[in-house]
Each structure stands twice: as C-alpha cells, then as structure tokens.
C-alpha cells in the first residue's frame, strides 16, 4: 500500500488526572480505511478529538502528510486536510441544510467547485437535496447524521475522521453510507479513520482495524484477520451494552 498519510506515535491524552489515551500508535496508509473498535469509554472519541485538534495531547507525535500537527488548533487541522464527523454531530440546527453544507466548505474559496460538490452530495444523499431549505434541526436523527458526513466532505478532506457514523441509522442506510464512503476512497483517494461500535459493519469495508481498550491499542492489523477473531465477537457481545447498538431511525 501507499506510504502513511497519518502516523501517530506515543500519543497520550489526559482529562486532568485521567489518562484517556496512553502510548497510542497508528499508521494509516493513504487511501486506506481504518476501523477503530472498542467498548464504551475505551478512548475512541478522545482519539478523534485529539487528531482534530480539540484536545491537546500531553505527549506523542502526530504526523499528517509529512507535517507535525500535534497541538495545532482545529482550524489549522481542517486546513491541513482533516475533517471530522464528531460524536453528537455538532450541526447548526437553525441553519438550513444547504447553509450547513456551505459552512462545511468554509476553508474553500472556489465558488464553482463548492456548487459542484453540493450537487454531487445532494445526488448521493437525495434527502439532503430535497430538504435543502429546511433547518437542520428539523431533520430526523439519521438524516442529521448524513448531513454531518456530507458537511465534513464539503471541505474536500484528504482524511476523514468519523465517530460512530452508523449510530441512529437504520441498518440499510448504514450499509448504504459505508458503500458511499468506500466509493469516495476508490474515486477520490479519500483516507478514512472510522470509529464504530458495529464492528462487523466497519470491518466489512475497512482495510485495517485497531482495537482500543482502556486507552491503549490492544490489537491492530488487517481488518480481515480481526474479523474472524474470537475477541471481536466477545467484544461485540460482551462489552456492548444494549442501547448503544444501532437505534432504528425515528
């Protein structure tokens, strides 16, 4: 595979006295999809927040496309080419769907390209096109999730960070979404780091996977090798409390 677009080494992130991540290391080749798995509280969201610049690592290095980005503020990280679909979506509820998408393109100045990307996303997510003028807050949970992903793509990122994108999506929509992500990877060379509770879904399209537990990487390797492994099944059935699996769409 291509050389690493993102390499993380010795990453430590703390919330006060609590080390939510310790000694985390990752290598993500360009154009690959990495699934990060782990139980509740394992540190998955913390990892994404640190990569997106919202949390400042206490220790460790993060190199993205040859540049050190550890400790940079979020606006610099977006400009470097990393977009984040955060936990909780963080949409602008009173802005229209279209305005939310335009905000996604904040770092860009190419008006024509922005319109092209809007049209493309609205054909990939027809519901967003239909509801372009409605406030984002009026969309259903699943639609909001799609809007959050589409908004992140509007920045034309090289690396997309997604925190549990299938949460709140009906299984069929979740599969569709993952197919769309896979297509972006093949057509645009997008690199993806996706956190998922639904391990089977994520491992289905991921090339690589890593498992976090207690803020440490406890397993890492090609997705297919992890797919069959016993502990994945154990993790899914054992550590995944009811209610955090896919909620049906409202």
């Amino acid at each position, binding site marked *: 595979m291509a050389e690493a677009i993102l390499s993380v080494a010795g990453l430590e992130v703390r919330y006060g006295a609590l080390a939510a991540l310790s000694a985390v290391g990752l290598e993500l080749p360009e154009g690959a999809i990495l699934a990060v798995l782990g139980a509740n509280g394992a540190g998955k969201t913390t990892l994404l927040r640190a990569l997106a610049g919202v949390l400042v690592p206490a220790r460790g290095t993060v190199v993205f496309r040859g540049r050190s980005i550890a400790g940079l*503020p979020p606006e610099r990280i977006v400009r470097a080419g990393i977009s984040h679909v955060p936990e909780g979506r*963080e949409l602008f509820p009173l*802005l229209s769907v279209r*305005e939310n998408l335009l905000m996604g393109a*904040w770092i860009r100045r190419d008006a024509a390209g922005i319109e092209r990307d809007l049209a493309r996303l609205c054909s990939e997510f027809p519901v967003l096109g239909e509801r372009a003028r409605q*406030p984002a807050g009026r969309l259903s949970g699943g639609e909001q999730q799609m809007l959050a992903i589409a908004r992140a793509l509007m920045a034309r990122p090289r690396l997309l960070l997604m925190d549990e994108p299938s949460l709140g999506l009906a299984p069929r929509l979740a599969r569709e979404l993952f197919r769309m992500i896979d297509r972006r990877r093949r057509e645009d060379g997008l690199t993806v780091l996706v956190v998922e509770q639904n391990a089977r879904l994520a491992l289905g399209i991921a090339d690589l996977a890593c498992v976090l537990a207690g803020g440490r990487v406890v397993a890492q390797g090609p997705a297919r090798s992890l797919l069959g492994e016993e502990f994945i099944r154990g993790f899914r059935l054992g550590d995944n409390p009811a209610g955090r699996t896919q909620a049906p769409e409202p």
Partner: protein
Amino acid sequence: MIEFVQLVLGGVAVGCVYALVALGIVLVYKATETVNFAQGELMMLGAFLAVALTSAGLPYWAAFAAAVVLMALAGAALERVVLRPVLGRPQFAIVMLTLGIGLMARGLVAAVPEWGAQTHSLETPFAGASLHAGELTLSADHAMVIATTAVLCGALTLFFHGTRLGLAMRAASQNQLGACYMGVSLARLHSAVWALSAAIAAIAGVLLAPITFVHTNMGLIGLKAFPAAVIGGFGSLPGALAGGIVLGVVESAAGFYLPEGAKDVAAWVVVLLVLMLRPAGMFADAAPRRV
C-alpha cells in the same frame, strides 16, 4: 388622535436608538456569550468622535462614516487586547470587566480638557428642518434616526443571509464547537463581531447626538437597551429591535399621560410584564431563524 400619533412617532425614533444599542449587546452576547455592559459607553465614544471630527472641519457625513469606522477598529482592538485574554474565565469576572471598560471610557472622555466638562452639540446639515404630513410633524433628527435604523436593518439582513462571514457568525452563535470543526477561527470571528457591534454603537451615538446632545453620561442609555434586549428575548436580533421600539413608544406615552417620573419606571414595568407573561421574551415563538 394626532397628538397620540405624534407621540408614537417620537417614541419610535428614540426607541430606534435603544434598539441599536440593544442590537450590539445581543450580537456580542450571541457570538461570544459575553454580556457587554460597556455598549452604551461605546455609543458615547462614537458620538464624541463625531463631534471632534466635525469641529476639526469634517462635513457631517464624512465625520459620521469616520466615527463608525474608527469605532469598528476600536471594537476589534478591545476584543483582541482586553477580552481575548480572559476568554474562559468565569462569566461574572468578564461581566465585571465590561463594566470596568465602560467606567474607564467615561473617565477617559471626562479627562479630555475640551470634552469632559460640558455638553456638546453635533452640527448636522438638517438641523431645524422637519417633515410634514397633514398636521403631523416629524423633526429631521427623528426622521434621520428612523430611516438610518431601517437601512441598517436591511443591510444587516443582507449581511447575515448573503455573505460568508455573516453565515459563519450565525453558525457560531448556534454551535461554537461546530464552527471550530469547520475551520472557523473563533478568535477572529469574535473580533469581527465586536467590530460590528461597536460600529452599530457609533451609528446610534451619531443619530442620538442631535437629539440629546453629547455628554459623558450618554452611555447610561445602556440602562434602556438592556430592558429592550430582555423584552425581545435576549438573543434575538429582531427581538432587540422590536423591544427597543416598544420601549421608546411606551416611555414617550408614559411621559405624556402619566405623572412625572413614570417615564423612567415605564421601561422596567414593561420588562416585568414581559418576563411574567412571556418569560422567553416577545419573540419566543418566532421563526427558527434567530439572527
């Protein structure tokens, strides 16, 4: 009847000034979650600047424009130098800081030899003129306030709904973290909001100057702008506008029909009524768009 319409017109004009000051307060509050108690003093500074510039020989309109631009720069500087360093401190500390800024502004103006002690008047090209429609009379000063406020509201609507920066301000006022994830630099956005708010304050000051004269205590108008903002729901720009105008009209009617002193109480009576009857403000159920 004519008398009443006349009263309402005068009230609307004064209310527009309350509304503009309230608008500045709400803008900053929505974008930065800071309640700026110095907004009235920013207005006072704008008025003094205009007076200074006209007495230096600048024509009214040029002095008006220059005062607005200078106050916008001062607003951005205030954010950069004073408020940004205290970002994230407890709310009451920041509120105290804005109160301090207001007091300092008054002290500063009072210390300028030519400025502090007296009241000043701002020369306008339309001084003494008035508009007539039948038996109704509207002084040009009042007409100027109403017309400028209307134009400014139109311009602000275009800005918030038709420009990149305006869209980002609305977005950040709904979700700061979300705006951060989009690559918006909140620090620079806050500077822009303070600049806009101070520019609006300067406009209010220049509009009010021919009506009440210019003096160091002008900024006390903030005491009317806060109730105006609260009446409008504290967080809604159209609400602040409507709140200011309602307040101006109620005050001018109270001043005419009720005994001495009622005028100054009227604002607070309206606030109490609104808070009791519609705790979220007049515009509580207004359309989802709030900016």
